[in-house]
């Protein structure tokens, strides 16, 4: 493209900082902060490739996250599989949930806010289902027994989690970079901008949208597996709560939806606000209040997200 991208030097430097971070700041607080920031970046990227790149705005992305968290935890707790198997299982489960929601809502021709509402409804349905059946542990959720060995996907040194989520986030960024430079990505951008035109030019919009929802679902599903292994506990509210959907969406929108690095910027900010408010104030949910206020300011002054501050004016996040 004609517009300049962060160079290989920029990428290398960013990665170096990310790698050095837990070595320089090894306190549990800072490592936890790093893990959270990368975790938000990862699930934010999941929302971003569907919502930002393909324009399929979902308000219920937590559905994929929760399905991944439950699928990986259940094969471990109920079937006795190795926890590491949870990663591919959660990816498959997330993709399957993405396929289901995509096929049902795109077949019905749902777009824009209707699609957003139906995803929200699906997340709620999933929450209610896992809340009411026995096999998921119902409202009590599932507690994964503590057994800190690498073979068990549990680590005494929390920094290992940091490096795992860093690897996952790097992979998600590489995926986003590939999307920007591929035919698939160009088609998604076309669908986002004008679906009728996309069809007229021979794009199978239904198939492309379903594909991206499956990929996005798989990523969020893996995020769910990681979350479960990190906190060793899930329940219906944690796994399918609306707040996580909002966080995924905000991370992406505040940083810059439809850009590769937007979710990273938004995630660092969200993690910082959330940790700082938790450490300094005792008011529950204050971080979300601050985050909402920030969103208002950003929509008013930087409609393309914070990433605009890092870019030259000529660059537009809308381009594939």
């Amino acid at each position: 493209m004609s517009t300049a991208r962060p160079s290989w030097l920029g990428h290398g430097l960013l990665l170096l900082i990310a790698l050095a971070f837990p070595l320089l700041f090894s306190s549990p607080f800072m490592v936890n902060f790093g893990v959270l920031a990368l975790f938000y970046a990862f699930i934010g990227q999941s929302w971003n490739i569907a919502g930002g790149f393909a324009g399929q705005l979902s308000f219920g992305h937590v559905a994929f996250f929760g399905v991944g968290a439950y699928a990986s935890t259940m094969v471990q707790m109920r079937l006795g599989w190795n926890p590491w198997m949870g990663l591919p299982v959660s990816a498959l489960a997330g993709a399957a949930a993405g396929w289901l929601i995509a096929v049902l809502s795109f077949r019905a021709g749902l777009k824009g806010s209707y699609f957003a509402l139906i995803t929200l409804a699906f997340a709620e349905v999933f929450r209610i289902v896992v809340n009411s059946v026995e096999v998921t542990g119902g409202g009590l959720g599932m507690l994964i027994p503590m057994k800190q060995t690498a073979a068990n996907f549990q680590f005494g040194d929390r920094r290992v989690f940091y490096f795992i989520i860093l690897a996952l986030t790097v992979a998600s960024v590489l995926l986003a970079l590939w999307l920007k430079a591929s035919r698939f990505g160009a088609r998604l951008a076309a669908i986002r901008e004008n679906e009728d035109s996309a069809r007229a030019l021979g794009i199978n919009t239904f198939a492309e949208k379903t594909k991206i929802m499956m990929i996005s679902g798989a990523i969020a599903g893996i995020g769910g597996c990681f979350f479960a292994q990190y906190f060793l506990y899930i329940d219906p509210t944690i796994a399918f709560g609306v707040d996580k959907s909002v966080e995924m969406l905000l991370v992406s929108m505040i940083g810059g939806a439809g850009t590769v690095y937007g979710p990273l910027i938004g995630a660092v900010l969200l993690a910082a606000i959330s940790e700082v408010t938790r450490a300094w104030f005792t008011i529950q949910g204050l971080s979300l209040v601050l985050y909402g206020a920030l969103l208002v300011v950003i929509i008013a002054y930087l409609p393309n997200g914070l990433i605009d501050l890092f870019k030259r004016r000529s660059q537009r996040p809308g381009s594939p």
Partner: protein
Amino acid sequence: MLKVTNLTKIFGGLKAVDGASLEVGQGRIVALIGPNGAGKTTLFACIAGFLPINQGRVELLGQDITGMKVHDIARLGMVRTFQITQPFAKLTVLENIAVGSHQLHERRADALSHARNVAERVGMPAAMLDQPAAELTVAGRKRLELARALATEPKLLLLDEVMAGLNPQEIVDIIGIIRKIRDGGVTILLIEHVMHAVMSLSEHIYVLSYGKIIAQGAPKDIVNNRDVVEAYLGRGAAEQMAAAEGQHA
């Protein structure tokens, strides 16, 4: 190339298209004209698969495409443009065209260079290519519609009023471009209100009025067709004109 037989489209109680039949031969420029509200754009939408039809049959290159999906029809080589331009607003002009180019070119770099090539074919200045499509003038948008469709390398182009809103010079330019596209081997069916363009471009004209094809023929026959004059000017207009001419003579 294209054969439409007895196509009928009903919206509620309104027969928007009523048993229309038309045929477009390979390598020709054929025009579809008619007063406002005659159902031209509806007929286009039905042919291209955007609207389901109530009756009739559409054949492309001998293949029955009735009821096929829009994107499948486009891949078979029939691509439409929109009367109300529908650009990918946030993408640049080049990226817009490249979406079409990607149909045949898998790699991004190939698609972009093909798109550059197409832009040149429709006479877009290179400076325009990096502009966001949203910033284009009417003439620019019309040309982008054309370029994007052309970038899919279609066999048949359906052009819906690509000249509406253009100034006389721009119309002259686009007539030349359309002729060049045809000479490059693309068959063209166009809806147009700019009569002198229709007359100079097309080899065959179909006239649609109240959803029915009321006349067809070579341009010179159409201008003298009594039904066509009345469709445009009202009942009795042809006789009044003939009478007026008689008095002058």
